[in-house]
């Protein structure tokens, strides 16, 4: 009797183990040669309020590539309809990128984000990218010359994400979701500009919740990388001062006063002067310090302008609102914070420490 109960309890434990892990005994047929794992979805606005979704098939193997495009009412509808027009079953388990058109992003991407989030097959390590221009045209043009373009694009995003290269604002679904559902929902995404022949990084898109509000580019985007994203830049060309700084690491100290009326940001920067083509003789210490002061002043001005732009856009992608959070207290509402943020006085102070090009004479 004891043995019977022992065996019964062991069987019960085994069954529970499977149930608790959510394991499904009815497995799908995923035989690798019969399926076509989708690497990316490109989502655009279609006709009559529809979505236009595209992907490249087969994604990884060396067969003739085809760009599949469909106009659908629902995002998931695409997966089903693609199966009817392609001989391999499309599977979502390897989706690594979702490219969203800028126009669509301005209308809001919450439905797409939520659809991706609830899909158990899709990993949250999925890069979200905003595209300005027609990505489908670009793909169609490049299929013959660069058949593995989708894979190389994924590798590029992975490269810049993994080692914090400080070149691009790379975001994955998990990071986007975390900011989107935080008390101050102002996520960011990278923006790529595309035409039929070229594909290039443009800057960082700023969101108010799920709607794209504006894009910061060039020098503003570089400063954004220093302030928030990577705190590192490999190069920072400043054409106005005829200087290129290199290997720049930043240490940002933010301070919000008690009345939420003044924000003080002190940014300590270390780096080297990589290139100088100006009039100063920076081998001399005094002139070198003068250049350093010019750089400090320039960066302070640029950063202040960038933050003012954010205030105008009514967005807070640098998450200054988090400075208002304290333990055991309810977070401030988004609207209230925005009221403070729009009227906030901003003091930016740069402290630049540079290694010169060569030995400096006193």
């Amino acid at each position, binding site marked *: 009797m004891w043995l019977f109960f022992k065996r019964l309890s062991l069987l019960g434990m*085994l069954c529970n183990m*499977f149930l608790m892990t959510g*394991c499904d*005994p009815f*497995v*799908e047929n*995923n*035989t*690798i*040669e019969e*399926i076509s*794992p989708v*690497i990316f979805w490109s989502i655009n606005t279609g006709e009559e309020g529809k979505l236009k979704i595209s992907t490249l098939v087969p994604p*990884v*193997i*060396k067969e003739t590539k085809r760009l599949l495009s469909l106009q659908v009412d629902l995002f998931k509808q695409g997966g089903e309809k693609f199966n009817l027009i392609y001989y391999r079953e499309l*599977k979502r*388990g*390897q989706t*690594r990128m979702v490219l969203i058109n800028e126009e669509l992003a301005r209308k809001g991407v919450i439905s797409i984000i939520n659809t991706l989030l609830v899909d158990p*097959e899709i*990993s949250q390590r999925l890069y979200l990218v905003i595209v300005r221009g027609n990505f489908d045209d670009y793909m169609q043009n490049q299929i013959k010359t660069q058949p593995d373009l989708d*894979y190389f694009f*994924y590798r590029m995003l992975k490269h810049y994400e993994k080692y914090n290269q400080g070149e691009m604002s790379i975001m994955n679904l998990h990071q986007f979701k975390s900011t989107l559902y935080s008390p101050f929902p102002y996520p960011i995404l990278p923006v790529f500009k595309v035409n039929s022949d070229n594909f290039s990084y443009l800057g960082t898109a700023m969101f108010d919740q799920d709607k794209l509000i504006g894009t910061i580019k060039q020098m503003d985007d570089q400063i954004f990388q220093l302030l928030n994203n990577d705190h590192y830049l490999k190069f920072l060309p400043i054409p106005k001062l005829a200087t290129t700084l290199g290997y720049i690491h930043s240490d940002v100290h933010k301070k919000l006063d008690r009345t939420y009326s003044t924000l003080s940001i002190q940014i300590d920067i270390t780096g080297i002067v990589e290139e100088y083509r100006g009039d100063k003789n920076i081998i001399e210490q005094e002139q070198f310090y003068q250049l350093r002061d010019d750089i400090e002043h320039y960066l302070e001005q640029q950063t202040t302008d960038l933050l003012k732009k954010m205030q105008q856009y009514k967005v807070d992608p640098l998450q200054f609102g988090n400075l208002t959070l304290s333990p055991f207290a309810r977070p401030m509402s988004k609207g209230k914070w925005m009221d403070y943020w729009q009227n906030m006085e901003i003091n930016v102070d740069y402290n630049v420490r540079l290694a010169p090009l060569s030995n400096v004479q006193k």
Partner: protein
Amino acid sequence: MFWNKSKEDKGSDRGQNQSQQNQQNQQSQQNQQKDQTQTKTATPLTLENLKQKLAKMDDAEIIEREPNADLKVTFIYIRTLVNQERLNESVIEPLNHWTHNSVFDTLSIAKIKSISTLEEALEQLLSGSVIIYDVFYEQWWTVHLDIALSRSIESSETETILYGPKDSFSEQIDQNITLIRRRLPITELKTESFNVGSMSKTTIVLMYIEGLTNPEIISIARDKLSSIDFDLFLESSNVAAFMEEHPHSIFPQFQQTDRPDVCVYSLGLGKLTLLVNNTPFALIAPITFFHHFQSPEDYIHRWIIASFLRTLRFISYFVSITLIPMYVALTTHHYQMMPMQILFVVMESRLNLPFTPFWEAFLILATLEIIKEASLRMPTKSGQTLGVIGGIVIGQAAVQAEFASKVLIVLAGIATIASFLVPNYLMTKSHAIIQFVFLVLSSFLGVLGIVIGMIAFLAHLSAITSLKQPYFAPLAPFHGRDWIDLFIRGHLPWMKTRPVYLHPLKKWRTSRRR
């Protein structure tokens, strides 16, 4: 005492101590009764009876001699079992000068004894003795003069090591005992002799160190040996088959070795050694699962290197049983789990294959097993041919013919080589079965199938015993102290205690503490 035919009690381990003692008492009583019955039913030894028994045995010699007119002696022996030179020197020559003394006084030889029954005479005769019948005094004598047929002491072929002792056991049990006794010159090293096999009359010597090895374990081994009832024992694994508590398990519960240093090390830890006549392989028990991953060389290398090598063996064993099933699981069910770069390669290599991943893996593994088995059975000179055929047919032609993917060939190669890292050959053979079981499970349930397989594998290991001691110790039951010689091989001076699962009478290996 091979005529003891009482069957081994297959009761549960629970409360085994008491039941064992009772059983032992009962058994010894039964043995005594049977001994008495044996004596009562003994056939009287006469020349006629003996001649009748030896009829139609061409190599049986019956020679009658009359050194003097009133003295007559008969020699009976099996020519093929007796050393003829020693017979002439030690028996025939002295008896030529025989006076009226008894044979015992005339023959100044150590191995002479008196016998009185036909059964005794036959047993002696077949073990290489000469029976001498003194007609005058009507006395029967036996002189042991067997031919010491033995190969020289060679190095082990099954457990080769680069450094360390090179000698290994031979088929001569006395020679094997000598090799052990030379390494353990202590009187506490006891040897108990048993005879098994109603036809083979195989001698088994049970060796242990008195005052160190747990008497309960000795008693279990003794009982198991006494209860063996079979006709032929040609190898020590035959004996192990009768002594194992879980004969249907694929894991050997006795360690087989032909290395005397391994036997001595085991004896010193508190284990038993069984030497079986006519085989170079001794049995060591009780052992655990982890003993199969230990090599004598572990105790020769620097401890960090030895630990690295031992850990490598465990990892290799794990890899060898899970690598191919994992490939099948990933390519059949979990394409999501593969990094994209690997997915590239796998999809590309499987594109035009006619088989599903399961059948592809099954066929390749079956072929590899065939090649492995063939390489053992083929003459050494044909080995090269086999290597070429195996390499070209499996490695190249199968891929070119698109019968198997390149990835699988690489993985199968890694898994096969990894399986050979386990020093114990019998254990190496078990991996193939586990691999096939995991393969089937993974094809149906994917990684979940492998997990179920692993649970069953670990549960089975936890359930089996070796001489009624836990087979999965010191992991289950947990003995933290023994972990110093488990996945790593600790520094020798740190290994001051003997394994807990053996319950040795002397815990400490150092002489200062007892």
